[in-house]
């Protein structure tokens, strides 16, 4: 695949939000409307104790991603209630048009004592093209089970031949590099199906994408798109330890393909997206999302510092 980089198409500093800390536009995900593309992302507020909390916002863009038309005036979904799985933020949210509704598959965060967080995947529904969402229940639609014991997150949902498919991640380890250091997570990409988008059947622990970096590779944010009859998955991956500060261990964009939605062949080189030296994506590329609009296929992604300054895009050449 050949991608033409379009640069940092949404710079948060040039289009500040009326809420939040002014930092982070993470995990961009597109909803194509008649006259614009509504791109949802997670931004952060800072709590009195200094901790971040993620909120879902959006930017409306021209359909060629060449101009910003407007930004959300407030988060599209309210904060979760006391003790719920998404009480401490939503990051990311995947959107899917279904009948007259927009389904938002949220990854909710709640804080823990021995590890920083636990996550689960919730469903929220919008009746106004994504301006506002209401939760379907206060609990998650996908959460920890016997062989996916924690950190179920990053749901991406499509309907194929009448069946809902979700690709997502589940945790396989919380482990520390050494005594006195904080536990770090490892997660892998999994798959579930559903007749209604609410009740899901997991493959229960099957890791559907092979590791490139070894068993400690953390895989995140799968997104599946088609080229002809072949399914392609983009995701990001990194080392378990040192990924925040060492560019050599940070997120890169990975790729796998499948002809049957069961077996996936990893082939990162086929995607060929790399950072541009000296640019906003030089040190890190993460949280990829592919969508099509008016015949063109776009890749949205975050760059350095996990998307602190905004997100960029690339266009697939025919």
């Amino acid at each position, binding site marked *: 695949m050949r991608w033409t980089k379009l640069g940092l198409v949404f710079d948060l500093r040039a289009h500040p939000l009326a809420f939040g800390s002014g930092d982070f536009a993470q995990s961009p995900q597109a909803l194509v409307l008649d006259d614009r593309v509504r791109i949802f992302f997670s931004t952060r507020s800072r709590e009195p104790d200094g901790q971040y909390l993620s909120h879902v916002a959006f930017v409306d863009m021209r359909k060629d991603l060449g101009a910003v038309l407007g930004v959300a005036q407030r988060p599209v979904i309210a904060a979760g*209630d*006391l*003790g*719920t*799985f998404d*009480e*401490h933020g939503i990051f990311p949210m995947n959107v899917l048009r279904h009948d007259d509704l927009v389904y938002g598959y949220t990854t909710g965060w*709640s*804080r*823990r*004592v*021995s*590890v920083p967080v*636990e996550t*689960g995947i*919730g*469903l929220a529904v919008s009746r106004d093209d994504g301006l506002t969402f209401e*939760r*379907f*229940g*206060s*609990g*998650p*639609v*996908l*959460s*920890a*089970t*016997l*062989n*996916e*014991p*924690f*950190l179920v997150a990053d749901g991406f949902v499509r309907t194929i031949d009448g069946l809902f498919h979700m690709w997502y991640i589940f*945790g396989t380890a*919380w*482990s*520390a590099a050494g005594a006195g250091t904080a*536990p770090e*997570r490892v997660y892998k990409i999994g798959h579930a199906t559903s007749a209604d988008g*609410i009740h899901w059947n997991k493959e229960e*622990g099957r890791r559907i994408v092979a590791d490139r970096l070894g068993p400690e590779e953390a895989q995140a944010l799968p997104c599946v798109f088609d080229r002809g009859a072949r399914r392609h998955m983009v995701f990001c991956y990194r080392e378990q330890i040192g990924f925040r500060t060492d560019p050599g261990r940070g997120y890169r964009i990975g790729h796998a393909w499948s002809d049957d939605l069961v077996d996936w062949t990893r082939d990162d080189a086929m995607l060929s997206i790399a950072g541009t030296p000296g640019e906003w994506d030089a040190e890190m590329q993460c949280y990829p999302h592919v969508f099509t609009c008016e015949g063109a296929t776009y890749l949205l992604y975050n760059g350095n510092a996990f998307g602190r300054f905004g997100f960029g895009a690339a266009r697939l050449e025919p």
Partner: protein
Amino acid sequence: MYFSCRPDADANGQYVSYSAYVDLDRSDLFKVRAVADEPILPLGGTGTFDEFGVYPVSVIRAGDEVRAYYAGWTRCVSVPFNTAIGCAVSRDGGRRFERLGQGPILPYTPDEPFVMSGPKVRRFGEMWYLFYIAGRVWKRVEGRAEPVYRIRMATSPDGLTWTKANRDLIPPRIEADEAQASPDVFEAGGRYHMHFCYRYSEGYRSHARGYRIGYAWSTDLRNWTRDDARCGIDVSEEGWDAQMISYPHVFAVDGRTYLAYLGNEVGRGGFGLAALDGGFD
């Protein structure tokens, strides 16, 4: 008899819970034959749902094995804890158990968002039943977060893959936010009998608002008629069970039917027994 116990609190005053057992003499249940010399299951690993507690536990025979369904405890920041239901198996008659997996056997779902606990596993005919509780809201009470939970059930052909009923089995009686726990189902006389415990959502460490034992009956295990007046037991005038009674478990041995339960301070000193006089009616 399986039960749960705690080592001394840590420097922050926090407890972990383990489960263990005591062997009672069949001919005299007040004669202790042996106690477990170690917990039946170690605590879970870092970040797992049962890292800080295995409590309570319900056991069932499955062929040559004994399976334990238990609530695992983790610690949270905005609320003190969360719980989920796990499963472990024993191949030595119930002395030591091994987890079936690192995660819970029953997931959180949209209307069972947290605090899934108090499992009681049963098999009637070909079907497995899990009675348990699920939280519905965390209330703020005098600066503390207190969970409100209700009795729920799930069914399974094998005890491993569960289908939730997704509804409350027992309506609240004393207040809208009544907390219910320990749904213990026993079959006798062509009916199913459920003993459970219930309390007020606030001030429940007092005599007046603390745990009492409730009762409901059913002919189909799905539709239950609550009738606490028929539970057959109340707090005593004085003694170990005068302040509260909770966590009932009904079982039959050699023709007699017993109710095991906790007394004051939710079982700090041990558990007691009552024997059924006559039948359930």
